[in-house]
């Protein structure tokens, strides 16, 4: 084996308005041919900056020291990326090292065909004829698993699905046969089932094309699935480096241990759900449900003359007082639409949806407004769900002021302080602005705001998907604690089965706008009946390389059965 890239004592600093900030500090890493090195860490740990340095993609505000020695695939030449001129960098990019980006839909230019975009890369580096280049583009599309490549080569990016787009991005990286691929969170924007396919493809890149891959990710499951060696980064430094099996079996650094402990597993929530179920009063089943949907249908209107888009069709479910219903599904399955319909943000177009005894089909905002004080809503992205110009205390006081419990934010301060304490934020944080808090802190403040009026129903729309794993674990714990304390019913929306499992009493699985399976956590996750749920569950990578290898076999079997 030969070394494709050798990073030696790399340091990167950025000039910011507040002076110098160091992003990467004394990092040394090596990638061999045919090896996948995973760099894991939380946001801000410097993993993406390290990867971008390999391609010389850092912005002008960055200064670097150390060396990044890049070899070509044949191992005949070496170059230090840091000292290359712009022209030399262009020659190296694509031929020696290529990049796969996080968001496939923005990495492709929408106004050119995918074939054109692949050929552009080819012709920039080699003097190949248009005809040969096209043949090569078709060949590479076939190899990354795009069906009917002769025909699809002339299609535009929007004509492909998200997973296919990521395949095309990988094809663009592969076409010049580089020795190294840098994949920056290649599956984060994709659904679990698609993620499994892309990981398979990357594995084939390594085995069939003999490439070195640098995989940047925060998902320990993905690491367990694909990586040969793992480097854990924390605060710009590599805190631990080991081969995948050793790292998962016996982590050495404290940080790695904490990181692994924070990863949610499927099956951890069953015990607590049973415990909660046992505590319920005998007449619980007869109590009026908080939310009751029967034959719920939501259609988004189409443009002139075109039929509307049916986001949700014929969904039935109930949420009883004090119960947490977990709603799971892929993007586009309609789970967020259902949450928004319950909060009155999206119109119900058919069937019946009763929220706190009110029919939502044809409801008017004026009638619904008094009800809003009984419903809380936690948004997905804590960064954007706070008005950036108001302090945290003012934001949390908003619901109190709006519903007349306090005349102004200052008068509500005592209650706000109580709420902040309830979500374990120090009182003094009330005087800070949202941008002065970290993601996890903001999401806790968001919880405080939604609980300000002690609602009977809390809708949480992917509340932890924008957070790092360790922060996510803490927020989920807090959510469970608050739920015990306040006793609200909740609709917990997530794409992550393991997260839902921790919290939910019952789990509903949504697929293309209809409910395919519903039951307790033990039922749905322990013995899934619907083939879609089975596939979803098998696609979820577990943070354990040995177990994950078995699951991979299981998934292959399931796919062949379909």
């Amino acid at each position, binding site marked *: 084996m030969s070394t494709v890239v050798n990073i030696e004592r790399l*340091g*990167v*600093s*950025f*000039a*910011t*308005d*507040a*002076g*110098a*900030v*160091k992003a990467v500090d004394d990092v040394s890493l090596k990638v061999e041919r045919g090896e996948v090195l995973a760099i894991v860490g*939380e*946001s*801000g740990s410097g993993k993406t*900056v390290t990867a971008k340095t390999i391609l010389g993609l850092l912005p002008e*505000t960055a*200064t*670097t020291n150390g060396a990044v020695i890049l070899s070509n695939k044949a191992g005949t030449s070496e170059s230090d990326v840091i000292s290359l001129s712009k022209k030399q960098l262009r020659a190296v990019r694509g031929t020696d090292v290529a990049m796969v980006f996080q968001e496939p839909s923005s990495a492709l230019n929408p106004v050119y065909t995918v074939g054109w975009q692949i050929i552009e890369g080819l012709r920039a580096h080699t003097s190949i004829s248009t005809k040969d280049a096209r043949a090569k583009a078709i060949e590479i599309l076939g190899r990354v698993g795009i069906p009917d490549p002769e025909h699809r080569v002339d299609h535009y990016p929007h004509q492909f699905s998200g997973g296919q787009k990521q395949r095309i991005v990988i094809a663009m990286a592969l076409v010049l046969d580089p020795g190294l691929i840098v994949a920056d969170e290649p599956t984060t924007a994709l659904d679990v089932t698609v993620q499994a396919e892309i990981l398979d493809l990357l594995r084939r890149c390594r085995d069939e094309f003999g490439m070195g891959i640098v995989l940047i990710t925060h998902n320990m499951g993905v690491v367990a699935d694909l990586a040969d060696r793992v480097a854990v980064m*924390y*605060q710009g*430094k590599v805190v631990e480096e080991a081969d995948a099996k050793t790292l998962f079996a016996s982590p050495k650094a404290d940080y790695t241990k*904490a990181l692994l402990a924070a990863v949610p597993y499927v099956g951890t929530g069953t015990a607590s759900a049973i415990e909660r179920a046992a505590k319920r009063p005998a007449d619980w089943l007869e109590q009026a449900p908080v939310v009751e949907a029967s034959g719920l249908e939501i259609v988004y209107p189409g443009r002139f003359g075109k039929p509307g888009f049916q986001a949700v069709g014929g969904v039935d479910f109930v949420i009883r007082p004090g119960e947490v219903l977990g709603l799971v599904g892929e993007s586009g399955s309609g789970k967020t639409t259902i949450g928004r319909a319950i909060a009155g*943000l999206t119109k119900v177009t058919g069937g019946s949806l009763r929220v706190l005894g009110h029919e939502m089909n044809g409801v008017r905002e004026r009638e619904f*407004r*008094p009800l*809003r*004080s009984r419903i809380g*809503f936690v*948004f997905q*992205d804590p*960064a*954007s*769900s*706070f*008005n*950036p*110009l108001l302090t945290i205390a003012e934001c949390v006081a*908003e619901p109190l002021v*709006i*519903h007349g419990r306090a005349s102004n934010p200052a008068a509500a301060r005592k209650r706000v302080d109580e709420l902040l*304490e309830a979500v*374990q934020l*120090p009182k*003094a*944080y009330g*005087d800070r602005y949202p*941008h*002065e*808090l*970290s*993601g*996890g*802190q903001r999401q806790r403040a968001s919880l405080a705001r939604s609980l300000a009026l002690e609602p009977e129903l809390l809708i949480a729309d992917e509340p932890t998907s924008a957070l*790092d794993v*360790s*922060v996510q*674990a*803490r927020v989920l714990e*807090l959510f469970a604690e608050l739920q015990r304390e306040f006793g609200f019913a909740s609709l917990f929306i997530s794409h992550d089965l393991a997260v839902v499992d921790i919290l939910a009493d019952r789990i509903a699985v949504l697929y293309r706008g209809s409910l395919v399976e519903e039951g307790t956590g033990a039922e749905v996750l322990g013995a899934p009946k619907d083939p879609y749920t089975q596939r979803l569950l098998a696609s979820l990578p577990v943070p354990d390389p040995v177990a994950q290898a078995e699951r991979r076999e299981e998934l292959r079997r399931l796919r062949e059965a379909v």
Partner: protein
Amino acid sequence: MSTDTVIQPPRRRLRDRLPVVHQLRQSVGLQRGMLVAGLVLTGLFVLVAIFAPLIAPFGFAQLRDLEGPFGSQQPPSADHLFGTTVGGYDVLSRVLWGAQTALYVIVIAVILSLFAGVLLGLVSGYFGGWLDRVLVVVCDAIYAFPSLLLAIVMAIVISGGQSNLWGGVFAAAISITVVFIPQYFRVIRAETVRIKAEAYVESAKVLGASNGRVMFRHVLRNATRTLPLIFTLNASEAILTLAGLGFLGFGIEPTAAAEWGYDLNKALSDVSSGIWWTALYPGLAIVLVVLGITLVGESLNDLADPRLRGRRRVAQASGTVAETSVVPGGTLTAGPGGLGGLEDGESFDEHGIGVRS
């Protein structure tokens, strides 16, 4: 967790929060030079406008002093530093007094168009529907007219073309306002449409906030970020429009106020006969004021965008590493983690992040 000690971030000092002062402190190199030059020119203009009665040697409509008439088209001399015009006015005094008229017009025009444009844009963008469509079409229609032509029509409608000081100032200001309202309208409407979809506006709606509260508390304050830029750029355009009106003879009577455009018009015939001072100084005044205000506007524009903002290069791998959340639940002393948080211009200030360099 609640036992953690909290370090209260100090409030930002006043000088960091004032719009222009903050940018001045933030800027470096060429951008700073541009901003400083613009601020000096603009400041000079405002000072001259305010103190014109004290600085100017003569009144703007003064034709004679104790020693008799000034005489027309006199070259620059000790008595008349910039010479006299064909009508026998002192050029220096007219130029200084002209600053005052220009300032009046800018202030009135910008304030009027600011209020009308912002309010219309907010309502139109927030509620949408037929009102939005009608307003957008009307604004597009106004865009379709040459702005000077529109200003001329308005000047004729309002004052019949000629009038006294305030009549003339208002006529000019209102005609400029009509041209500018669509610009403010467009910007605020676009921002409102964007902000309307932000999660914090939805969250206010979910809480049951009324439309008025959402509009003024959550949308308006977040939509006004770009206003200082249009504000400065429009101010320079207002001067050009005023000068254009005056040049074409729709401005203010020379006896009512001094006006650069009018003086330029009267200097037209002088140029061919070698009398340079009557045209040079009013023209120079217009150029310098427009240049100054435009420089301020353009530098504010560049500084507001973190990607365009210049920074000092940092030493090799200096600085400390920003803390990221490690402790379950996140460290309490750190700000938003990651370089995303650092590079985001608005959400970042000296205390936003746990950086100690």
